[in-house]
């Protein structure tokens, strides 16, 4: 087994793999991230069986926490498999903060949190903000400290899908990308290294100031969202809300009572950025 250890925000990982290549890709893309002494989680990429280590290699995603029916991925998508394994550890095992399936960005010490279903564009929007004057905090999980309500950065690699890949490639010259992985179970995927300030400040927290529910592909519109609806949607977006018990309930009620929320429909990245800036001026 090959091994690579890394720290992303408050969490650290030991990545193990029977194949060198995906780990080397991770090493390169996560080069600026701190190492880990005693990692919080272990992720293992293992051959489905001995034969499949060499012939049409197929990697099962295993580790401390596993899904019984998780489909293996071809080894060309090993990088994606490792990222999925890391997400799974966080979603199932992390208890130190409340996890929201959301992206986040910071400006002026305050955090914007964006959540929505797959395809809503939350990941792309956080990447766009990250190269337009905001500090990128994460594209997958927003971590909320249950004691003081602060958002804790989790700036893993940004996972770009389908059209978002070309959009970002054209957008900036000095960005580093991982390999383009075509036709994965989630479509075409290419990982992007977050901007340098996002990595350098990965332990700098921020107070949530605005919650957005973006939706890509609709005529531009902004809708108020009452705390009750925000609360219900965020319980759905959290992977550990129930496990945190009363602590989780208090963290979430605190969040929705103190932070304004809006639903935001948009048709293009530019349009969304304009609307986000406008709402931020008004509300944050």
């Amino acid at each position: 087994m090959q091994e690579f250890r890394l720290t992303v925000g408050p969490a650290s990982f030991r990545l193990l793999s029977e194949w060198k290549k995906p780990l080397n890709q991770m090493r390169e893309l996560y080069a600026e991230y701190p190492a880990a002494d005693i990692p919080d989680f272990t992720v293992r990429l293992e051959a489905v069986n001995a034969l499949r280590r060499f012939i049409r290699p197929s990697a099962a995603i295993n580790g401390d926490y596993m899904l019984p029916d998780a489909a293996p991925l071809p080894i060309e998508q090993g990088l994606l498999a490792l990222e999925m394994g890391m997400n799974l550890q966080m979603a199932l095992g992390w208890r130190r903060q409340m996890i929201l399936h959301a992206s986040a960005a910071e400006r002026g010490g305050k955090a914007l949190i964006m959540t929505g279903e797959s395809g809503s564009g939350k990941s792309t929007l956080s990447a766009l903000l990250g190269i337009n004057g905001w500090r990128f905090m994460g594209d997958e999980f927003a971590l909320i400290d249950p004691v003081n309500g602060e958002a804790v950065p989790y700036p893993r690699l940004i996972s770009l899908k389908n059209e978002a890949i070309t959009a970002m490639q054209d957008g900036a010259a000095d960005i580093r990308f991982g390999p383009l992985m075509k036709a994965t179970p989630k479509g075409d995927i290419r990982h992007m290294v977050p901007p340098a300030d996002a990595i350098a400040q990965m332990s700098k927290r921020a107070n949530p100031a605005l919650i957005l529910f973006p939706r890509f592909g609709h005529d531009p519109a902004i809708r108020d969202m009452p705390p009750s609806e925000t609360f219900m949607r965020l319980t759905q977006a959290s992977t550990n809300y129930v496990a945190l018990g009363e602590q989780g309930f208090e963290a979430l009620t605190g969040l929705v009572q103190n932070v304004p929320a809006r639903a935001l429909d948009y048709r293009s990245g530019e349009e969304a950025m304009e609307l986000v800036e406008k709402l931020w001026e008004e509300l944050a």
Partner: protein
Amino acid sequence: MSNPHGDASILVDALRDPETVRQLGSDGWTALLAIARAEQLIGSLAYRLEGQPMPGGVAAILEDARLNAEYQRRSALWEANRAAAALAGYDGKVVLMKGTAYVAADMKAGIGRHIGDLDIMVAEGDLPLVEEKLLAAGWEWVKEDEYDDAYYREHMHELPPLIHKERDRMIDVHHTILPKTARPKPDAEAMLEDAVPVNTVSPEPVEGRAISLSIFCPEDMVLHCTAHLIADGELDGGLRNLWDFHCLIEAMFASVMDGNEPPDPIWVHDQTLGPLYRRAKQHDLEAALRRAVRLADYCFRTCKSELALSDRLFLRRLLARNGYGQPTRKLTRLGFYIRSHWLRMPPFMLARHLWTKWRMGRKKSASDAG
């Protein structure tokens, strides 16, 4: 880099004697945590290591584990409460089993324990009524396969698993503690007869009718654990079952010995445990009990029992996990896998079962491909 060739002894040592963790370096801790998670003993370990000096990163991980164990305890008791409410009006005993029973009765075995499904036992003759009430309260069948369904009903010690459609939690309804086809025949009637009430999870009465849940008497609790560990299955989760066993038997001793430490090694003191051994004979589980006692002594007590040659094989299987958290010793595992089928079914039936399963597998892959 942690040693990939090690086995789970590091976990057994830490559970037996928490001070052994003081010698661990970063790699030792990393291996211990991965093994404990894979064996679903991280919660038990977290409580066991409370008060030991440890690196800050480890303390945070174990704090997470305790928080998670508390969540599992809370949801297990709530699930028991919901089952009791669903069974209101049923006059027979409903016995909580395994983890849920340990936490309901506030036992040492329940501290930090991982709890997944809810396991209950009722009289075999009452199964149709119990099933009907659970279905009416929102539980549904997990797999709707005629062969599996019929197999469960004819040969197993439990109904096919049910899952609650809103809470997404499974319930296993047992009528005895070993498959009907296994050679030992536990006295299920006596187990129900002697089960004792446990009041911590009783729901509000439904339409004026309350139901009180029960747990096995202490001897049967040990023997159910024994059957689960030694006489059934392929020893998956074996270390956790052995730790349960150890905690249960210590608690039993504590009650007999009036709080004094149990003598070493336990198994020579058959007289103190007389009622347990008599009960084991009644359930056809005497040899299994002796083996479990020897293994638990060996792993979790300072004065070690003499292990028989076959015990060494069990030990080899129980410890088959490396510092990466991977299962190891494939041949030993395979051996115990075959043994689990052998224990479960007479040879002819086993052959027929494997044949049917193989054909179903082929049909399925043919239809998947098409």
